[in-house]
C-alpha cells in the first residue's frame, strides 16, 4: 500500500477544522447521504459531489498528497477553510472503501490537482531568485539593526527603572494597582520593539490574581525579567549561544538558520492558544533518527486557525531548521518530501526523575525556560487532593500536573485511558508541573491527543 493509501482517523480529520462550528457541520456531512460520485485516486486525491440546498451539487476535491499539507477546493461559497464539505468528504473517506472507493480521477478534479501540483515548482523557482535581490544595501541593514538595538536598550533601561521603583515601594502596592500599571509598561516595551519583554510584563499583571503565594511568584518573575534585562545590557560579554537566546527572549526576530535536519517526524501534539489579538499554534514533533523534539510555532489572526495543521498520530518526512539560541526547541518547517501519513511509532520515554533533571539541565542554556518536552514511560495519573499527579509506576516519585492541565478535558481522557494502569505520556515538564499533551496505552493502541 502506498503511503497515501492509508486512511486517516476521524479524529485526525476533525483536527483540520478551523473552528467548532465547522467541526459540527463537517461531521454532519460525513455520511454517504448527500454525496455522489465520491472516490479516491490512491495517490492522495479525494473528490465528491455534495448535494446542498441549491440545484447543482458542490464539487469538492482534497489533495492529501501535497507535501505541504492537505489542499482543498470546493465550489461552495463558504469562507471557512477547509469548508464543511471538504471535512465531510474526508470523514467519509476515513470511514473506508465502502463510501469512497478507489477510482479514476474525474476530469474536473484532475484539472485542479494537476494545476496545483505544478505550482510549487514555480513558487520555489521564484523564491530561490528572491533572496539575492533582497537587502540591496548591507550597510543600511546594519544601521537599521543598530538603531533597533538602541531602542531596545532604551526600553530595557526604562524597564529596569520601573522594576527598581516597584521593589523600592514594595510588591504589596503592585498587588493593589492591578493590570493598569503593567499594561502601560507593556505598551512602552512594544514601542521599544521588544515584544518578548512586553509579553512577559503583561503576564506579570495576572500574577497577583493567582491565589495564595502570589508575592513569591511575582518576585520570581520580576527577578527573571531583571535577569533578562541584565543579559541584554551585557550581551556582548555572553557566550554566543546564550546571547542569541537573550536576543530571541527579548523579542528580536532572527531567521531559522540552523542546518536543515531531514527526519521522520512524529506529530506528538498540536494545540492552539488564543488571546484577543492572536491565535498561537504549537506543534511538537519528534524525529525518530535525530531523537530530537522540536517545536513549530505559527500564528493566525484572532479567530482564524494558523497554518499548518498537522493532526496527531501522523508522521512526516521533512526538513526542520532550528532557530538560533542555545537550548531552543523551536524550529521552522522546511521542505517536505512526502505527505504526512499515519504511524504507529512512539517516542521513547523516560522516568519522572530524569524528566526533572532534563529541565534542570536545559535551564543552564536558557534560564527563562518554563518547560521542556518530555515523554514519560510507565506513569499513572493519580488524584492528589484537588490536583493530579503523574506517578511513576515503579518507584515512589510523581510529577504534579500544572493548573492549566487540570482544567482541560484532556485530563479525563488521560485518566480514562489509564484506568489506574501505567501509560506513556508526552508533555511539557517545567517549574509549574507537567502538562500532558498526548498519551499511549501500554499495550497496542493509537495515540490519544490530550489537548
Amino acid at each position: 500500500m502506498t503511503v497515501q493509501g492509508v486512511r486517516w482517523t476521524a479524529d485526525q480529520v476533525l483536527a483540520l477544522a478551523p473552528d467548532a462550528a465547522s467541526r459540527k457541520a463537517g461531521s454532519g456531512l460525513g455520511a454517504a447521504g448527500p454525496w455522489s460520485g465520491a472516490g479516491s485516486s490512491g495517490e492522495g486525491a479525494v473528490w465528491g459531489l455534495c448535494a446542498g440546498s441549491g440545484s447543482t451539487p458542490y464539487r469538492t476535491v482534497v489533495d492529501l498528497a501535497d507535501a505541504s499539507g492537505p489542499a482543498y477546493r470546493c465550489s461552495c461559497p463558504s469562507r471557512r477553510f477547509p469548508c464543511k464539505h471538504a471535512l465531510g468528504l474526508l470523514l467519509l473517506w476515513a470511514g473506508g472503501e465502502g463510501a469512497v472507493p478507489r477510482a479514476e480521477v474525474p476530469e474536473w478534479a484532475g484539472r485542479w490537482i494537476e494545476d496545483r501540483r505544478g505550482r510549487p515548482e514555480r513558487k520555489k523557482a521564484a523564491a530561490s531568485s528572491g533572496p539575492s535581490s533582497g537587502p540591496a544595501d548591507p550597510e543600511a541593514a546594519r544601521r537599521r539593526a543598530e538603531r533597533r538595538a538602541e531602542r531596545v536598550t532604551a526600553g530595557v533601561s526604562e524597564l529596569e527603572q520601573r522594576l527598581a521603583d516597584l521593589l523600592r515601594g514594595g510588591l504589596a502596592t503592585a498587588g493593589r494597582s492591578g493590570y493598569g500599571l503593567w499594561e502601560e509598561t507593556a505598551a512602552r516595551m512594544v514601542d521599544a520593539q521588544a515584544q518578548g519583554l512586553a509579553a512577559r510584563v503583561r503576564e506579570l499583571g495576572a500574577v497577583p490574581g493567582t491565589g495564595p503565594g502570589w508575592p513569591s511568584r511575582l518576585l520570581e518573575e520580576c527577578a527573571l525579567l531583571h535577569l533578562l534585562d541584565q543579559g541584554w545590557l551585557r550581551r556582548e560579554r555572553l557566550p554566543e549561544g546564550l546571547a542569541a537566546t537573550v536576543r530571541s527572549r527579548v523579542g528580536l526576530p532572527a531567521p531559522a538558520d540552523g542546518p536543515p535536519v531531514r527526519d521522520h517526524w512524529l506529530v506528538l501534539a498540536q494545540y492552539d492558544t488564543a488571546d484577543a489579538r492572536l491565535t498561537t499554534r504549537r506543534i511538537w514533533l519528534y524525529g525518530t533518527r535525530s531523537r530530537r523534539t522540536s517545536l513549530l510555532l505559527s500564528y493566525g489572526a484572532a479567530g482564524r486557525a494558523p497554518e499548518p495543521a498537522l493532526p496527531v498520530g501522523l508522521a512526516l518526512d521533512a526538513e526542520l531548521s532550528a532557530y538560533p539560541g542555545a537550548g531552543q526547541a523551536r524550529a521552522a518547517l522546511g521542505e517536505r518530501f512526502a505527505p504526512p501519513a499515519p504511524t504507529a511509532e512512539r517516542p521513547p520515554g523516560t522516568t519522572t526523575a530524569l524528566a526533572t533533571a532534563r529541565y534542570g539541565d536545559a535551564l543552564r542554556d536558557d534560564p527563562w525556560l518554563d518547560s521542556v518536552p518530555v515523554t514519560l514511560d510507565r506513569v499513572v495519573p493519580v488524584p492528589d487532593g484537588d490536583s493530579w499527579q503523574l506517578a511513576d509506576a515503579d518507584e515512589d516519585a510523581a510529577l504534579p500536573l500544572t493548573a492549566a492541565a487540570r482544567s482541560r478535558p484532556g485530563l479525563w481522557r488521560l485518566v480514562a485511558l489509564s484506568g489506574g494502569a501505567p501509560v506513556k505520556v508526552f508533555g511539557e515538564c517545567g517549574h509549574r508541573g507537567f502538562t500532558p499533551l498526548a498519551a499511549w496505552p501500554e499495550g497496542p493502541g493509537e495515540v490519544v491527543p490530550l489537548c
Partner: protein
Amino acid sequence: MNRPATAAAPSGRHAATPPGPAPHTTGPADAPAVPGPAASLLPEVWEDLVTTALLGTDRRTPAGSASGAAAPAALLDAAAAAAVRRRAGLRPARAAERPRPVPEDPRPELPPAAARRLTVLLTDRSGASGGGRRGAAPDLLELLPQWLAAANARGFAAPPPALPALLDAARGRTDLRPAALRFAGPRGLWLARLNPDWRFALRSAPGGSTSLPGPGDTERVMRLWQEGLFAERVALLSSLRSREPAAARELLVTTWATERAEDRLMFLDSLRARLGPDDEPFLEQSLADRSRNVRATAAELLSALPGSALARRMAVRAGACVAVDHTGDAPLLTVEAPHECDAGMERDGVVPKAPAGRGERSWWLGQLVEAAPLGTWSRRLGGRTPRQIVALPVGDDWRSELHTAWCRAAVRQRDAEWAQALLGEPSAAEAGGPGAVSLAERAKLLGTLAAGERAEWVAGFIGTHGLPDAFQLLGVCAVPWAPPLGRAVVDALDIARDAGSYPWSFSGVMGLAERCLDPSEAGHLDALLAVPDEAEDASPGAGGYWSEAFQRLVTTLRLRAAMLAELNPAARP
C-alpha cells in the same frame, strides 16, 4: 507532601528533595529534609527576600545586602539566582495514594470503524445547533441512543478515551444514561468516582455494577442496606429485585417497621419490578400502613395481581355496579355507581375524596373498575368477549366513565385482549376524533400489545386519519418500524407534501421517521428527493424544503445502516 509550612514555594508544587546525594542544587523551596546548613538556610533566605520585596526596600533592608539606591537591584539579583537555582533543583514529589486499577473488562473492543463513528457522534454533542432550519444534514446526537443500544446488544466495550465525552453526554440527557452506563462498563464507573460531575453514574448504576454487592454476599448486602445512603439502598434493592425478587422483599421486611414514610413509599415502588403472587402477603399487610401514600401504592400493586384477595374484593364491588339490562330492544349495560365509600373500600386503596369538579360516586366507580381484574367481567356479563362487552351500549351517559376505567385497568394489568377491544378498529371514524378513549390512553393501551399488532394498528390509523394525531402513537411503536408501518408513514408524508403544507408542520414525525424507519427503506425514498414543480396552491418554496427534509431522512437512514454494519464484526473483511 512534606513541604514545611514555613517554606514559601515561589511557584510550582514540587515537594522536598529526599535526603542523599542529589545531582542538582537544592532550591529555596526544598525542605529541611535535606541535611546540611546551607540547604536548610535557603528557604529562610528566600522568605526574607519575599518579605523585603512585599514591604519595599525603602522600608526594609535585607540582611547582608546593599542599601539605598542599589538595594532594589541587589534584591532582584539575589532573587534571580535563587529562582533559577530552585527551578534547576526541582525533584519529583512523593506519589499520592494510587487509585485501585480498573477491573478487567472481558468485552471485546469495538471494530475500528465503529470506534471512529462513536467519536463523530460524540463530537456533535457540544454543538447544539442554535435554532434555525435543520438543513439536509442528519442530527447525529439523536442517533447516539440507537448506536449505544446496538453496541450493547453486541456486547462491545467502550474505547477508554471516549468515556469522558460519553459520560458528559449522559450527564446532559437522562434518557441516555442506562445505555451509556452499560456501555461505559466498569471503567466508566471507576472514572465517575473520580469526577463529581459524573456522580449520577454512581446513583443510577445498573444492576450489574461492581459497587453493589452480589446477592451471594449476604454480609455486605446487609451492611449496605443498614448503613448505606438512601440512594445506595434504593440501588441495592432494585438490583437485588432484578435478580432475586423474593430476597429483595425479605431484605425490605427486615427494616420495614423502622423506615420513614417517604422511604417506605420509594422502597415499595421498587417492588413493582417482577411483581408476583409471592408478594401478596407483604402488600396485604401494607394496606394497614400508617401512610396513606404507602397504602395506595400497596393497593395499586395488589390490583395488578389478578389472583390477589384485594383483586377479588374489588371484582365483587365493581361487579355489583355494572349489569346487562335485557328489558329493552337490545342488551344495554346499566351502571349503578356506589353510594358510599365504606371503610373496607378505603382500606383497599379507594380514595374517598373526589377531586374538584367530579362527582363522588363516579369517582369511586372509576377506582373500583380500574382495580377489578378484567378477566372477571366476561363471566359477570353473560359470557361475552371483551370485544362484545365494549360494543354494548351503556345507559345514562356512563359510557365514557366506564370505558376510561377499563382502559386504565387494561394498562395496569397488561391485558392485550382488552386493550385490543378498547382500541377498536384503527380505521373507525371514531378512532380519529375525540372519542371515549383519548390519544394518550390509546398510546398506553398500544403499549400492552405485541410489537407486530401495535405497528399494524398504528399503520391502519395513519392510513385513515393521516399524521396530525399520530406522533404520540408512533412513539410507542417498536424500532425499527415494521414495514407496513414505515410505508404508511412515508405515504402520509408524501400526501402531506402534495397537499402543499410546509414540512416543519410535520417535524415531529419527520424526526421520529429518521430514527425509527428501517434503514432498508432508504431505497424506496429516492423518488421523493426531487424538487417538484410548484403547484399553484402550494405554499411558496415548500417543494424545496420538502426535498431537503426527505434528503435528511434518506441521509440519516443510510447513516444508520452504515452504523449498524460497522458494529457487525462478521461483516469485517
